[in-house]
């Protein structure tokens, strides 16, 4: 163990995430993990961690951490202010946080989720092989609360020479997402939806909920529940699509019209309520 972080404050949701717990779907347990896996991987690489090390996923902002011993951290994902004591520090960069200092993530200005990785990783006990909080199943570490003490693990890899990554900030306007055909595309009049959809406020780690023109079905009847993947665009009875994210249910009984690419899932995980989406062929 190389130190401890104390959670002083959290915003709407701060939870631990790594790359999840694959391998248990046949028992009804989803993979979970970081909603924006690319951002988590980058944060870990910047501080010389294994890409699957556990970091803190911060929804919008509000995280305040007190650092007991000096640590190296990196913050990736949504664009937003990061302060170490009174000093603003850059995103997508390695930052040394002195012993006794406070790290604050104020509200993101673009995008939705940030990843704070600490060199050594957050070393709480894993559950079924992962430190990810599955907010659908209620599995894994509980979301962080003020007063929580987070142990920091031992760093295993050398600190990389790269100190700063050039990363395009999440877009704030309309976004076009590449969509691969889904297993039930043939259930729909328009297998590649052409309309524009708006992200609803009730979106979360389970799914983006979209509102827009109802997607019309050509096949009537029920679908026996079948296995789902992250990025699946599922269309329930009301025709308003859902885009499943990291905490998606393992199986679902509504048809999936398409599936996002990995890159598009990371983009989707950063979309704010009110942003508009269109789909295009990958």
């Amino acid at each position, binding site marked *: 163990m190389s130190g401890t972080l104390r959670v002083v404050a959290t915003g709407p949701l701060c939870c631990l995430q790594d790359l999840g717990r*694959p*391998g*248990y*779907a*046949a*028992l*009804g*347990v989803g993979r979970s993990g970081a909603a924006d896996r690319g951002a988590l991987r980058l944060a870990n690489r910047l501080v010389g961690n294994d890409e699957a090390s556990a970091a803190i996923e911060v929804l919008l902002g509000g995280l305040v951490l007190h650092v007991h011993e000096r640590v190296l951290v990196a913050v990736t994902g949504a664009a937003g202010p990061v302060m170490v004591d009174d000093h603003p520090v850059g995103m997508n960069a390695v930052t040394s946080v002195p012993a006794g200092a406070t790290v604050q993530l104020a509200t993101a200005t673009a995008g939705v989720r940030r990843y704070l990785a600490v060199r050594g990783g957050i070393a709480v006990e894993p*559950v*079924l092989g992962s430190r990810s909080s599955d907010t659908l*199943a*209620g*599995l894994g570490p509980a979301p962080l609360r003020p007063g929580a003490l987070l142990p920091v693990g031992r760093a295993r890899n050398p600190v990389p020479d790269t100190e700063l990554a050039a990363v395009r900030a999440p877009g704030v306007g309309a976004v076009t997402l590449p969509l*691969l*055909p*889904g*297993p*039930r*595309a043939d259930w729909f009049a328009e297998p590649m939806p052409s309309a524009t959809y708006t992200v609803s406020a009730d979106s979360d780690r389970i799914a983006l909920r979209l509102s827009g023109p109802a997607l019309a079905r050509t096949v009537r009847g029920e679908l*026996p*529940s*079948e*296995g*789902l*993947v992250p*990025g*699946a665009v599922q269309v329930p009875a009301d025709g308003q699509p859902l885009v499943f994210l990291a905490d998606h*249910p*393992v*199986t679902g009984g509504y048809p*999936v019209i398409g*599936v*996002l*690419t*990995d890159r598009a899932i990371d983009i989707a995980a950063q979309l704010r309520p009110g942003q508009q989406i269109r789909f295009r062929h990958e």
Partner: protein
Amino acid sequence: MRVLPSGEHALLIELADLTEARAFADAVTRSGIAGVREIVPAARTVLLLTEPGTDLRTVASAARAIEYRETSAARPPEPISIEVRYDGADLADVAALTGLDEAGVMAAHTGQIWTVAFCGFAPGFGYLIGESTALHVPRRESPRTSVPVGSVGLAGEFTGAYPRASPGGWQLIGRTEAPLWDVDRAPPALLRPGVRVRFVEDPT
């Protein structure tokens, strides 16, 4: 069999019915397919999840070539016993729907071996199929927002037990205290695909 797309890292195999889906899932589990890291069996389908970089066309060919129609020669596993107190909120409704009385519902539930076909919906939630159609009932018209932990229910051709309190639309016929889900146990789920169950009336 149909091979359906499901993104960059998966294929959805659709079979004719539950029996074929179970046979295919068993065959894939026994023989493995190169590049497939895990499978998600369901009522008519088996989702094949692949390692990054796997060529899905190769997986599709291998899936089509799997011999799954021959019945396995292996002896089925011994059934486990699960005790149930048959006092569920929907026991009377199920009695009416099936034309049995409440004692008859219990006798039908305990009088057949049930086999876990697949899991889904929640960790450790198994969908079990029985040996007769006597207890086939529709789901509740309106699901409950919260079903007590350990509730044993019926829906369609399945019986199941809720590992924790959750929303649920099944017809509840009883409750069990069996440890359906224990994250510290290996394996954590008591009811896994292939497990066979004899339900027994709780004697207390």
